[in-house]
């Protein structure tokens, strides 16, 4: 093995991959959210469809899509490898009495579970929208753009999807309540002056982003 593969298969190396990809996925969330906020426009989806058409065909976005898939891929792969190694490190004999809840928070201990719920949501989410838009012929709106807005309306008529999407966002919320500041700690980006601020920015980021995403299915189910 070269020093590069050795670095990234070490415990800290894998953690660094988790942190870098995790923060990259956070920037993706911002872009995705800002675009999707157009769903709340009172224009029957004209702006949203135009945006969605642009995202589907712009070469720069299509390139970034590959980076995004790689980001998710490494994050999920290393996350699951680390979770398996960490489980094995504790050994088969567990504590008979364990009060770990007295020294740490539930969500910080449940990153793999929360991540897996997010992953399940993600697969359904890709099937609902990305799959239809990329691989099937979707009717066009008055401006000649693929009518993604109509897909959103029809998906969120189904209460099963609404509930699943909200659960997905709650899982993401808890994943990020720990993950955002944790990534800075992993990268060694700590400072007695700035670390407390990073913690609160992380809380704010997680709550705002996840609440805004969760509002979309709820809004469509009840008001469209």
């Amino acid at each position, binding site marked *: 093995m*070269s*020093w590069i593969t*050795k*670095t990234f298969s*070490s*415990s*800290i*190396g*894998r*953690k*660094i991959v988790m942190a870098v990809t995790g923060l990259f996925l956070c920037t993706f969330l911002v872009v995705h959210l800002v675009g999707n906020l157009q769903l709340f426009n009172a224009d029957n989806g004209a702006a949203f469809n135009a945006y969605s058409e642009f995202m589907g065909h712009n070469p720069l976005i299509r390139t970034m899509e590959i980076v995004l898939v790689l980001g998710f891929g490494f994050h999920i792969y290393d996350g699951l490898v*680390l979770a398996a*190694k*960490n*489980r*094995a*490190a*504790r*050994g088969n*004999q*567990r*504590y*008979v*009495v*364990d*009060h*770990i809840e*007295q*020294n*740490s*928070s539930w969500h*910080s*201990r449940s*990153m793999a579970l929360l991540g897996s719920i997010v992953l399940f949501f993600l697969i359904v989410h890709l099937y609902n929208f990305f799959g239809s838009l990329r691989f099937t012929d979707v009717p066009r709106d008055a401006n000649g753009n693929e009518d993604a807005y109509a897909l959103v309306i029809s998906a969120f008529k189904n209460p099963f999807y609404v509930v699943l999407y909200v659960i997905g966002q709650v899982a993401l919320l808890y994943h990020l309540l*720990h993950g955002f500041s*944790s990534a800075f*700690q*992993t*990268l*060694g*980006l*700590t400072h*007695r002056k700035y670390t407390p601020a990073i913690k609160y920015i992380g809380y704010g980021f997680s709550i705002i982003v996840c609440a805004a995403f969760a509002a979309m299915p709820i809004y469509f189910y009840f008001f469209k």
Partner: protein
Amino acid sequence: MAGSNPNAKPMNLTLKVWRQKNRNTQGGIVDYQVKDISPDMSFLEMLDVLNEDLLRKGEEPVAFDHDCREGICGSCNLFINGRAHGPEPGTTTCQLHMRKFNDGDTITIEPWRANAFPVNKDLSVDRSAFDRIIQAGGYISVNTGGTPDANEIPIPKEIADRAFEAATCIACGACVASCKNASAMLFVSAKVSQLALLPQGHVERKSRVENMVAQMDKEGFGACTNIGSCAAECPVGISLENIAILNREFLSAKATSNNLA
């Protein structure tokens, strides 16, 4: 007993103790009753009472590690009622006093649990993995010759204090025992940052962190998920800041050292 409180009422307790013959046998919890325990006793003295009872009855005493009994050697490692070194923050097991418990309590006592810390017998575990990590860190180059003048190397007080804080780690392993990933990163980070903060540690700075992390992984400790159980249970209060320093040191060593292996 010197300084004992004559009004303190003796306690009767039920102990649930992990008993295991050796590394290769399956262990289990065994119940014992101990009577007339003074609240002024330390936790280890309470176990001494149990062992004397067992010896009188012709039974095998409970094996547990201890040495200094004053909170500095790091050998008295017991997982008490679901917490490393018991429920008191900032205390080793030998400094935990029975006055923190009540008459009639049931106390569960288990050994540290980690693949890298196999159980020798009962409550005693093999922590030689820590020694091998320290060995992997290697030596520190110092100039021989005449005695150097005092304060020849100026070190800002704030840095000296931080290095000293890291140096207070007693290698007890409570961080590993309390971490759900059995990660040794708080311990390793204390050792790495203690030397990385000081100019004396700079000659072997890169190889030290590379080798110690490699050994830590080889021993089968888990990876830190920044949960914080370790720092909460550490008897000397080693902070998570050290883990950030460790990661920084590791990343910069990997990026810039001449070690291609």
